[in-house]
């Protein structure tokens, strides 16, 4: 055996440490590449405020893809020769639409950099950019919800973004595709408007398809059959390329939320309004959209994800016209595991990943890892880049789902029935299969230490709450059931705490209860260091 000198030993140790810090030790852990424009290994690091150009963005994207390499070893290794690769950006609005503002949609340079990576490095046979936005396509005979530019009707393919919106990658999408066709004649490049690509039965009628059962988990939505698109179902390899920003309903927009654009608007839009209203109306559970987000992703979970974190929106997901809404961070993320990648997105935006309902659903389906301790973030340091984005007013974390319930509140709690609510709200009569003048529900909360925060409730009826045997709150509500309507300061002791809710029916409306523990900032995030159990 060759002996190594002291210098060689030190050098090899440093190299090993660098490799460990860069690529992670545990090969089993999902990896998420995180690159800011300041990253030292970029060809030309620039400040987080720099407007960037295409070369800089491409360098960031490619570096993030390298860091977030899939288990196959590389993105290109995972794409089989001759396969059909679909790149799904978020282009929900075009610039002339009043809800648009910079940071609302995926940066065109990120999409282009992913396209270029796949075109140059993989052996894909066909590369498709696919999206369904809130504007009608050029071939749609209807003329509501159409966008025009310079007097010419446009859609995602021929809208000219000009030179300023995405410096270095302006122009139209169709021009970009033409350029790639010329540069890569061995591959096919096209665009599919998912709004019109609905799967149809042999008679031509749009067809609803049952959500695939993954990891034994069936549909989360209020109904289990969805209209989906041919492209998403049939492609071989799907790359989700969202922009990261906050969202009024589900908290964050990332790899999973990007699937709302895969719901074909030709069947989900209502007359005169070209957005997926049908998804909301038919599939939301307790007003949350997370169930249909998670379900749509189950039809073809992302094979890889590249997240645009260059600019994003706080307060709400589309323009609210506030001067401080758009935040520039000059970040790009990439990873194979959509749950882990979105968990990192959540942390970057100042959310607790466990609060995001669709991530819990994705993890339950076996689509990835939600435990931050089991995720390797490679590249830049997550904690340094995470910042508290201002959350939507309506935001609240996933409510407790696991209860023991009874229609006989005086009975021994050990005899109560275990029940898991599919959504944020516990419907007593449904849970027990019978109505009663009064119900009770109990849950335990384990606290890592003494914890102060708020108990947020949604209530229909009259509630008496006890905490660890002591009266805590009495409240009555006969108006709209709204999570967070009732907010009470709460202090939990270390260890186990028992919350018991006795709910009486008031009037005609059946008794309902939602409960979530919120942190001291009262912003809708869950209380750190607590866990609901039964």
């Amino acid at each position, binding site marked *: 055996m060759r002996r190594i000198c002291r210098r060689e030993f030190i050098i090899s140790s440093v190299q090993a440490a660098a490799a460990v810090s860069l690529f992670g030790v545990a090969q089993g852990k999902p990896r998420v590449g995180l690159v800011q424009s300041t990253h030292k290994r970029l060809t030309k690091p620039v400040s987080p405020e720099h407007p960037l150009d295409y070369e800089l963005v491409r360098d960031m994207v490619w570096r993030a893809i390298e860091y977030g390499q899939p288990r196959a070893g590389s993105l290109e290794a995972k794409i089989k020769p001759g396969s059909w690769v679909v790149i799904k950006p978020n282009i929900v609005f075009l610039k002339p639409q009043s809800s648009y503002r910079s940071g609302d949609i995926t940066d065109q340079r990120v999409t282009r950099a992913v396209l270029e990576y796949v075109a140059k490095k993989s052996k894909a046979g066909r590369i498709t950019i696919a999206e369904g936005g*809130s504007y009608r396509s050029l071939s749609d005979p209807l003329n509501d*919800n159409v*966008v025009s530019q310079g007097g010419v009707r446009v859609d995602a393919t021929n809208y000219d973004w000009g030179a300023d919106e995405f410096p270095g990658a302006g122009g139209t999408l169709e021009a970009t595709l033409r350029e790639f066709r010329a540069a890569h004649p061995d591959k096919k490049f096209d665009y599919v408007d998912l709004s019109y690509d609905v799967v149809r039965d042999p008679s031509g009628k749009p067809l609803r398809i049952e959500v695939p059962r993954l990891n034994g988990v069936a549909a989360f939505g209020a109904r289990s059959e969805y209209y989906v698109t041919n492209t998403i179902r049939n492609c071989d390899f799907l790359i989700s390329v969202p922009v990261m920003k906050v969202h009024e309903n589900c908290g964050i927009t990332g790899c999973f939320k990007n699937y709302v654009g895969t719901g074909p608007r030709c069947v989900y839009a209502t007359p005169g309004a070209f957005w997926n209203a049908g998804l909301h109306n038919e599939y939301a559970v307790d007003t949350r959209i997370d169930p249909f987000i998670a379900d749509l992703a189950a039809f073809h979970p992302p094979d890889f994800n590249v997240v645009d974190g260059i600019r994003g929106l706080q307060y709400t997901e589309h323009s609210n*016209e*506030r001067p401080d809404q758009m935040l520039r961070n000059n970040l790009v993320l990439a990873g194979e595991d959509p749950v882990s990648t979105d968990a990192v997105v959540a942390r970057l935006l100042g959310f607790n990943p466990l609060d995001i309902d669709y991530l819990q659903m994705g993890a339950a389906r076996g689509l990835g890892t939600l435990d931050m301790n089991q995720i390797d973030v490679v590249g830049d340091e997550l904690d340094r880049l995470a910042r508290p984005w201002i959350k939507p007013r309506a935001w609240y974390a996933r409510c407790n789902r696991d209860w023991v319930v009874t229609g006989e509140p005086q009975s021994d709690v050990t005899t109560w029935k275990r029940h898991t609510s599919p959504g944020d709200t516990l419907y007593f009569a449904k849970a027990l299969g019978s109505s009663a003048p009064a119900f009770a529900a109990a849950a335990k909360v384990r606290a890592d230490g003494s914890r102060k925060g708020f108990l947020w409730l949604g209530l229909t009826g009259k509630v008496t709450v006890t905490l660890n045997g002591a009266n805590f709150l009495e409240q009555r509500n006969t*108006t709209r059931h709204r999570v967070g309507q009732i907010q009470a300061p709460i202090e939990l002791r270390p260890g186990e705490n028992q919350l018991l809710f006795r709910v009486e029916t008031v009037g005609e409306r059946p008794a309902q209860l939602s409960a979530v523990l919120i942190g*001291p900032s009262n912003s809708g995030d869950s209380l750190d260091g607590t866990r609901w159990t039964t």
Partner: protein
Amino acid sequence: MRLSRRQLLAGGALLPRVLRGQQNRREEVTASATIRARAPCVGVVLSSSGEGYDGSAGALDTRGRWRPGLASTQPNDADLSTEFVEAWVRKAIEMAGDPYPDLFRLIAPDDWVVIKTDISCCYGLGPSVEDGGAHQPFIPGTVTDLRLVRAVINYLMEHKRGARITIVEGSQQWLPMDRSKSAVDGWTTDWGGAFDGLSYKKMVEDLSKKYPEVDFDIADLNFAESLELPVLGRPLGRLNPAGRYTIAKVIAECDKLISIAPLKTDARTGVALTFSNYLGIAPGAKYGFPKSDLLKLGSLDEVMVDLHSYHPADFSILGGSFGVEGDGPAGPGATPVHYNVLVAGPRPASVDAVAATLMGFKVEQLPYLALAENLGYGSPRLRDIWVRCSPVEQAFRPFRKPSNWGPPAPPWGGL
């Protein structure tokens, strides 16, 4: 083709919009249900805002249809009948409802709606009553016209909106009867007959009989249950780094909040409009009578915007038959202004900006409007606002400014 006078005037009103459209010809969007116009809309309706024969009242909506002013009009200093007030309020709401949804579309049938009225003083209380309130004499224009409150509730009921309606106020000037030695308070006084003899107590009783399926109640925010909560987002009060205020629970718990207040000058902030109305949500039981402890948390401008953040106004109505000018917002320095005007809309900073402008103030001299804009409560710049029905120039009626008030010195993040 010959054009009628009305067509000609309507076309004239269209012209600036057409010209604006030409400036943006390269990027234009066909009107659609999912694509809202950017301009916050504020309705300004004088009692004299007629159907548009003079070309000055009424408005084109986003689809180019003419929405006329009032079917019958009254001089701007006339005493107004109940029927007139009902129609007047509906017209102001209608004018504020496009391109944003009409008020009733903002409210669900099972919502809990709070109406934050201004009862800053109480008729019938003398300054000598030692009950803890800092009594100021009632003069017309210092409180919300009760008929406006009733008209808004009738409007909501006609559209079957709201399962519970709560009228709220926390005055700095008077205490509820059950806590004072007085025989009257802001809830029970009939204002000497000033508002059709209405009192809030009687109004709620009448409404409960008329609409038995809806719960009507009154909450005195000075003594109602309260809780300390952090301000959502970024607190403004410079002396309140924790960003926490004690507020009445009803404000946190209600689904929708409608603010209704008169036009008033204020010796401290220049004007007392929608945002000033929110000083009432801070309980006197915590902050005193008057609520001077609030000033330990920041400037009045900062504090009232912070308080507004707890439940931003879903809709705001300003004006009525009377306002006050001079050293307001209460007597003895304030004097009444008899001027029938309503200013209404869903963006409170825009509504306040229009109201302040027609009172003769420059919006850039009102620091709280810049703070409110930064928090997203609407643009105070008139060029960004679509004023509908009567133009600001027509409704312009300068109010005498407070004697010691002047535009504050920078820096305050002016417009």
